[in-house]
């Protein structure tokens, strides 16, 4: 491996057929604040958005009460599944307000994750900024809905069961978005690195069998991980919001 000069960066560079810079690009300054973006992440986010939108429109178009189309059935299945998860964690009336958020999380994260399975493409979720963006939305929704349903009394839960637990309860709340973001990012980045590494092995004759078979096996596992991580993120978002809006006993 080392003899052939194997490196992830080299494979990544060889597979980069889109000509997108892998490093942040400076777009200018607004009020002294530098506007830097990761072009690869942004572009593949757009790709994922377009795919999700197309799927959604395809499902909604020709949606019928009596004869659901295939895509419609798939969406309805997902709706039912997520609705069930939401209703297990909060009252249906509260659940209604986050339903579209949850569905979008699940759809978008799944699509982003799957993008990473295609060589030369990149999962936007393999960039920590994407996962942190999602986790911040969850974090914000926790407070927004908590205050919406409980008023200022929402913050009382930091003093329970005892006021001197305050630092711990604050840490607990801060850990939620942090773990959400890093769990998804770590899984997707790891999956991507593994794909690159295994693709990198398919160069010499000796490594062909191992590299190719392992790559195929890993891609299969990648599908599984992608779905599981999207589900975990969605599920935890429901659970965190559920805790935030739960009525005190």
């Amino acid at each position, binding site marked *: 491996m080392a003899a052939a000069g194997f490196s992830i960066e080299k494979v990544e560079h060889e597979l980069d057929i889109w000509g997108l810079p892998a490093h942040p690009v400076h777009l200018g300054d607004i009020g002294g604040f530098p*506007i*830097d973006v990761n072009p690869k992440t942004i572009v593949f*986010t757009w790709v994922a958005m377009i795919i999700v*939108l197309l799927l*959604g429109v395809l*499902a909604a178009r020709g949606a019928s*009460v009596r004869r659901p189309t295939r895509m419609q059935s798939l*969406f309805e299945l997902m709706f039912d599944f997520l609705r069930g998860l939401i209703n297990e964690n909060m009252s249906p009336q509260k659940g209604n307000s986050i339903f579209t958020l949850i*569905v979008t999380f699940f759809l978008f994260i799944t699509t982003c994750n799957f993008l990473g399975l295609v060589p030369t493409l990149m999962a936007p979720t393999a960039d920590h900024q994407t996962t942190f*963006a999602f986790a911040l939305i969850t974090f914000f929704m926790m407070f927004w809905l908590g205050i919406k349903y409980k008023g200022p009394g929402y913050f009382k839960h930091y003093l329970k069961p005892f006021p001197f637990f305050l630092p711990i309860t604050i840490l607990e709340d801060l850990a939620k978005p942090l773990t959400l973001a890093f769990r998804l990012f770590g899984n997707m980045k790891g999956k991507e690195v593994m794909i690159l590494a295994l693709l990198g092995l398919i160069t010499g004759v000796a490594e062909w069998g191992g590299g190719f078979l392992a790559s195929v096996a890993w891609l299969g596992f990648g599908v599984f991980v992608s779905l599981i991580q999207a589900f975990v993120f969605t599920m935890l978002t429901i659970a965190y919001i559920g805790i935030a809006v739960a009525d005190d006993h």
Partner: protein
Amino acid sequence: MDLSFNYTLLAQIFHFVLLLVLLRLFAYKPLLKVLADRQKYVADNIAAAEQEKAEAQRLKERHDAELKRVQEQTQEIMQKAARSAEEQAQQIIESARLEAGRLKDSALAQIQREKEKAMAELRGEVASLSILIAGKIIGRQLDDAVQHRMVEDFIKEAGELH
């Protein structure tokens, strides 16, 4: 690995919110409407089915009652018919018996009458024959005049016989 943050974070938040809004507009709304419509459709159908079932139950009860009533009526009519038939039969038998008795009586009367008539005729015949025989037995001992008178009587009587 570079874990610093730049504008990408905000862009991703914006992207997500944009996608949420677009999906809500173009995908979720129509799909959720279809789901709600279907739920309503199913609920309506179930309600209609229940109503129809109740209606059917009601009709069945009515028909059962009707059937029972008709059966009872039939039973009654049959019994009445059987009773009246029996009565009629009894009547017919009775009248036949009366008729037979009447016929028998009239036949007996007829026979009696015929018998009496026959007896009367026989009595006349016997008398004349007796006289005839008596005349024959005693004729020789009578004189001509008497004989003659007796023969004349006899002829007269004989003539009267018929």
